[in-house]
């Protein structure tokens, strides 16, 4: 018999989750609820003795001081309605797993495979609520019906029925797993139909190539020997589809492109090779002996040198589609997923920081939300919480990030998650940035069990989101299982127990084993040996499952028992699944029978290249210019309140940004710990002085004019933030993460040519500016189908590139933060302001585009950055803040309230070109500019460093909080208080998120 234990707050104890929900229901739906009470429910599908149940009731599930548990009887109803939300069968239930472990340790009786603990949550709502209110609250806030089930009852019903009743979401699959085959002589139309039904996302050309392979005489003969017929099995087709997916093969970035711009045509043979690899190769060559890159574009993350003893591995990934479908699970999986990238790079790295950049539609969006999508505020909350749980529970500090808002992200939010790891340069005398599986090595899967979760993630993310997108693509990460695994594998690494390691992400075992098998030239894999969450998975599902928290390692035969022993001690599941061979074949068996037998060569090199067309056209937005504002103070306050400018403290504080102890510059800084830092800085080795400066740039708002400038500005912004905080160009590496709306022309995507041209322009800027600054990209990723399509509705994201920058500095003496430090310091603007209002927050305030986006004048910018580096090492720079969203005006406000000092400045000395209006000068978003403050006595030294750079001493910091700006004609245009500016800047999240 199963038991149901309900845990409720004792009377008179503050129900914190309940109170929080009550507030959210009011802000999100405008529904007044008198009270919300939350009840945690554990459904234990196992017979338990009375003694054990007593311990569970009295001590285990409730906190005895404040909660009370009810075993096999309902908690007393404390409202007018009850809603219960449970997971659907097969969805990861982390709390249930922990509860099971505890019961096992209490009862000393292991659970059978079909026994489990399932958790659910019950909500009692009090107040005059209608049934429709209950449904709105349940579906709009409490349950994601994709992965959860909810039921509700009125008080009378609840009491009459004796509670909500038992629900056991056990996975029951009665069918025996079978292997299907697909005859290839059915004609293209039939093949395309199967292709669609099975989410393979293969093109007709690719299907023809596959057909041709299986018709080859030598192939037929070899397959016959292996016990297979002429038709491919589902295991084979799935393996090919996954290996050849856009997600894994980056077909668009590797395509041959016919590019047309202003009537001129040219051929580009792979954007990736030409511009991304091409620029890095050139930079490394120019750097010569000073090259600090160790491994670029070939492993799960890029590797650079850190100090004498250590290297760094850095990677940023996106997890957009899963986050659209289930913001919490998608983002949680995003962060714990990218953790495994540096962790599975080289011989494996210890994870030292996370970064995250989220792009959403505006949280106060008032329009309709199309099917399958969520309101942006709900997406934001879910993503925020997913990354909170993933990052905090993994013990990795989140040190840098941002939130970007644009209405185009309604169709798909972008969830960029990044992680950096540190590895000793050598272990047992061998370099750690390379790895190699050897013939005869055992294939061992480490970590979680396999379920149906995440099946088709790789192929599915290669398609646009629509109402019929498969639900299996949603997964929920489990940070604790992963933490146990990484604790174990780092020990195994240091004991030299494995030869190679990689993660199981997109494509699961198919991808991880397939990639590692390239080292030796083959593999034998026994799928039936893989540990499963529940029975009934088909062999292809075991192969493709993207169930989380798994790494694949190659272990020498003589070390297998040592490896497995350590694994067991540390409560980590490790299973030998086969071995690496040199047979030239990707050989897969299930219960002793061959289910896939593919040539490694065909699998990895058989994919035909794509040929695409691109045509560039200039977009001019015809509109009237903006009138000069009458009240500049009001304008500045409005700009500070804009979503892209305002304080993100609400989100930042909920992330642990200093675990591991290396924190040097936190995301929030200044007198009251609330000013926005330009970059994060950490010292990963507590015994050593070297530090890492981490920053990013992201400017999707310029894509509507020209993606060339969008990328140039993103690169400049990433570098600018880094330099502003004390970073160095000499040892700075970048990551590029492209998120595009579909750039492949088709009938349903007529803008394909233009969007591909946008991609070409973006890549050209990447080449031009990384080579100019000498900052190589060491890794990156692209996500190419960020569109939502349903019936007539198509929502596309603005083309977005995130540039992440890390630089390595020798010590923290040169670190500078953005807050003014003293009164009576000189305030200086460095860099020239141009009339560049295109895409600016100022123009957006009036609903205009503005036509001229900022351009990066690379040579001058580089000179500025070099001088700034020199200046920070002398120690004369008291504060430095980069000028970006909201221009000079917002930047001054931030440095002022960050430092707690007012200002007295005049715009007349700001270096400028062709600007005749104060508003343009104050709010233009020209690149490569800083606001710094210095002590008056340091001016001569400042001048000697910056003599060849455009700068202007615009005024001084004040003792009090008055904030005075004079215009170019020396008339006062702004006279306010820093407290008011701070209030405005903090208002949006306070108002909309009860922050």
């Amino acid at each position, binding site marked *: 018999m199963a038991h149901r234990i309900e845990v409720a707050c004792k009377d008179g104890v503050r129900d*914190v989750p309940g109170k929080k929900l009550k507030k959210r229901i009011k802000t999100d739906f405008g529904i007044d609820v008198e009270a919300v009470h939350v009840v945690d429910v554990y459904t234990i599908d196992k017979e338990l003795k009375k003694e054990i149940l007593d*311990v569970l009731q009295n001590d285990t599930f409730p906190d005895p*001081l404040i909660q009370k548990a009810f075993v096999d009887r309902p908690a007393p109803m404390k409202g007018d309605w009850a809603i219960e939300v449970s997971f659907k069968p097969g969805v990861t239930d982390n709390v249930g797993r*922990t509860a099971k472990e505890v019961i096992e340790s209490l009862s000393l009786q292991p659970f059978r495979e079909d026994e489990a603990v399932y958790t659910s949550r019950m909500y009692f709502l009090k107040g005059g609520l209608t049934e429709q209110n209950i449904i709105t609250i349940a579906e709009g806030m409490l349950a994601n019906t994709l992965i959860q089930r909810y039921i509700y009852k009125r008080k009378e019903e609840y009491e009459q029925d004796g509670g909500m009743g038992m629900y056991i979401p056990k996975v029951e699959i009665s069918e025996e797993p079978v292997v299907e085959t697909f005859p290839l002589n059915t004609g293209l139309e039939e093949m395309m139909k199967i292709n669609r039904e099975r989410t393979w996302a293969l093109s007709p050309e690719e299907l023809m190539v596959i057909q041709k392979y299986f018709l080859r005489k030598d192939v037929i003969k070899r397959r016959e020997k292996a016990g297979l017929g002429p038709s491919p099995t589902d295991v084979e087709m799935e393996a090919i589809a996954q290996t050849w997916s856009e997600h894994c093969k980056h077909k668009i970035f590797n395509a041959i492109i016919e590019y047309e711009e202003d009537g001129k045509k040219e051929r580009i043979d792979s954007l990736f090779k030409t511009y991304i690899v091409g620029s890095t190769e050139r930079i490394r060559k120019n750097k010569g002996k000073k090259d600090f890159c160790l491994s670029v574009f070939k492993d799960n993350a890029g590797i650079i040198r850190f100090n004498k003893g250590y290297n760094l591995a850095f990677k940023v990934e996106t997890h957009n589609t899963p986050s659209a479908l289930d913001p919490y699970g998608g983002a949680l999986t995003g962060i714990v997923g990218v953790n495994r990238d540096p962790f599975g790079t080289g011989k494996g790295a210890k994870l030292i920081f996370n970064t995250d950049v989220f792009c959403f539609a505006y949280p106060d969006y008032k329009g309709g939300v199309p099917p399958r999508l969520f309101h942006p505020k709900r997406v934001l909350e879910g993503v925020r919480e997913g990354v909170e749980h993933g990052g905090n529970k993994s*013990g990795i500090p989140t040190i840098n990030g941002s939130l970007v808002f644009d209405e185009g992200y309604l169709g798909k939010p972008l969830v960029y998650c990044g992680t950096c790891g540190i590895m000793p340069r050598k272990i047992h005398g061998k370099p750690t940035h390379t790895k190699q599986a050897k013939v005869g090595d055992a294939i061992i899967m480490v970590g979680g069990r396999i379920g149906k979760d995440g099946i088709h993630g790789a192929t599915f993310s290669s398609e646009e989101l629509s109402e019929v997108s498969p639900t299996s693509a949603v997964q929920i990460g489990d940070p604790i299982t992963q933490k146990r695994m990484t604790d174990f594998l780092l020990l195994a690494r240091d004991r030299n127990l494995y030869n190679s390691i990689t993660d199981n992400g997109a494509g699961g075992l198919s991808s991880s084993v397939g990639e590692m098998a390239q080292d030796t030239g083959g593999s034998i894999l026994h799928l039936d040996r893989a540990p499963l969450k529940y029975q009934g998975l088909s062999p292809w599902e075991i192969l493709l499952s993207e169930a989380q928290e798994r790494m694949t390692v190659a272990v020498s035969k003589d070390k297998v028992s040592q490896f497995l022993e350590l694994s067991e001690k540390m409560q980590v599941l490790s299973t030998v699944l086969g071995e690496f061979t040199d047979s030239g074949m990707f050989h897969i068996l299930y219960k002793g029978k061959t289910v896939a037998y593919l040539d490694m060569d065909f699998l990895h090199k058989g994919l035909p290249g794509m040929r695409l067309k691109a045509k560039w056209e200039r977009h001019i937005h015809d509109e009237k210019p903006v009138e000069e504002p009458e009240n500049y103070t009001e304008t500045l306050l409005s700009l500070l309140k804009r979503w892209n400018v305002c304080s993100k403290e609400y989100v930042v504080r909920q992330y642990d940004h*200093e675990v591991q102890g290396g924190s040097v510059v936190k995301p929030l800084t200044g007198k009251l710990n609330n000013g926005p830092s330009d970059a994060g800085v950490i010292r990963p080795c507590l015994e050593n002085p070297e530090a890492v400066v981490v920053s990013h740039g992201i400017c999707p708002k310029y894509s509507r004019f020209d993606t060339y400038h969008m990328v140039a500005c993103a690169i400049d912004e990433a570098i600018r933030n880094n330099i502003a905080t004390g970073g160095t160009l000499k040892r700075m590496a970048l990551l590029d993460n492209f998120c595009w709306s579909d750039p492949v022309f088709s009938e349903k995507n007529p803008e394909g040519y233009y969007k591909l041209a946008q991609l070409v322009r973006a890549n050209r800027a990447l080449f031009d500016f990384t080579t100019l600054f000498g900052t190589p990209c060491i890794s990156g990723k692209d996500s190419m189908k960020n569109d939502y399509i349903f019936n007539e509705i198509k929502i596309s994201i603005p083309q977005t590139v995130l540039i992440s920058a890390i630089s390595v500095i020798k010590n923290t003496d040169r670190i500078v933060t953005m807050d003014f430090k003293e009164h009576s310091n000189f305030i200086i603007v460095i860099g020239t302001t141009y009339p560049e209002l295109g895409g600016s927050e100022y123009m957006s305030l009036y609903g205009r585009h503005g036509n001229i986006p900022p351009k990066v004048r690379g040579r001058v910018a580089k000179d500025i950055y070099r001088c700034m580096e020199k200046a920070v090492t002398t120690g004369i720079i008291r504060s430095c803040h980069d000028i970006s969203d909201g221009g000079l005006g917002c930047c001054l406000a931030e440095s002022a309230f960050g430092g707690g000092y007012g200002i007295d400045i005049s715009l007349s000395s700001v270096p400028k070109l062709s600007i005749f209006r104060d508003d343009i000068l104050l709010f233009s978003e020209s690149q490569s500019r800083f606001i710094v403050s210095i002590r008056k006595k340091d001016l001569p030294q400042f001048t000697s460093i910056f003599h060849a750079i455009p700068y202007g001493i615009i005024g001084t910091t004040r003792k009090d909080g008055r904030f005075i700006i004079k215009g170019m004609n020396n008339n006062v245009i702004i006279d306010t208080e820093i407290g008011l500016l701070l209030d405005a800047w903090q208002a949006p999240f306070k108002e909309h998120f009860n922050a």
Partner: protein
Amino acid sequence: MKKRRPKSLVLFGNGINCEYETAHAHRVAGFDPELLHINLLLKKPEKINEYTFITLPGGFLDGDDLGAAKAQAIKWKYYIISDSGRTFIDELVDFVARGNIILGVCNGFQLLVKTGLLPGIGGIYGKQSVTLTFNDSGKFEDRWVYLKVNKFSHCIFTQNIDTIYLPVRHGEGKFMMNGLETATALKQGYTVMQYAYESGDIASEYPYNPNGSVESIAGICDVTGRIFGLMPHPEAFVHHTQHPQWTRKKLPREGDGLKIFKNAFRYVRENL
């Protein structure tokens, strides 16, 4: 002759995540710390006899899935160590009775409270009499707080400390208690530190009291003063660059948090 550094123990594994900087703080204070996986220690509890000082660092033991540190607390309370008929709690009580010391930070504090090792009023351990639960704000938060040390406390870790500045990083740090006896004891020396304003006056309002703790209690000790638990992270402020405003202020190179580890060191040196 230089004295050998005393051996200390820092637990890790199962979701603990501050072991690295905690071991660093041990080292800087003068100890020779060893990291040991929590599962391995439960298998060989006699290992604790090799040490004089144990720290239970912060983290998310078992994901805090049944409430902060709860799942591990149950294992420690009920799991019987082979043949001996004793639990791991029994071992730790003996460890302290021999004069040794235990520090629990954040999740480690939650573990000490939920196993009933704290406050251990009158020397009775093993029954939970206080708790740490959801912050009134309903949020996990990372923020720095001022702390006032109770000068009447008998805690050996906080001698000669008046006020300190440390970060809290938790979602379940609200201190609550039951019963008159507990309240009386806490009014005496069991309360070690309370959330305060910069001036050192006790603060009850958010965000100075970041979680709504009763009596603004941030840390407590047991009857011996040798078991100490606190929500703020002393290991997170050992070096001046960890201070959120170090670029604004002239600070000593050593952070406030180190004082707690140095007191532990002095105690071990002088008494053990």
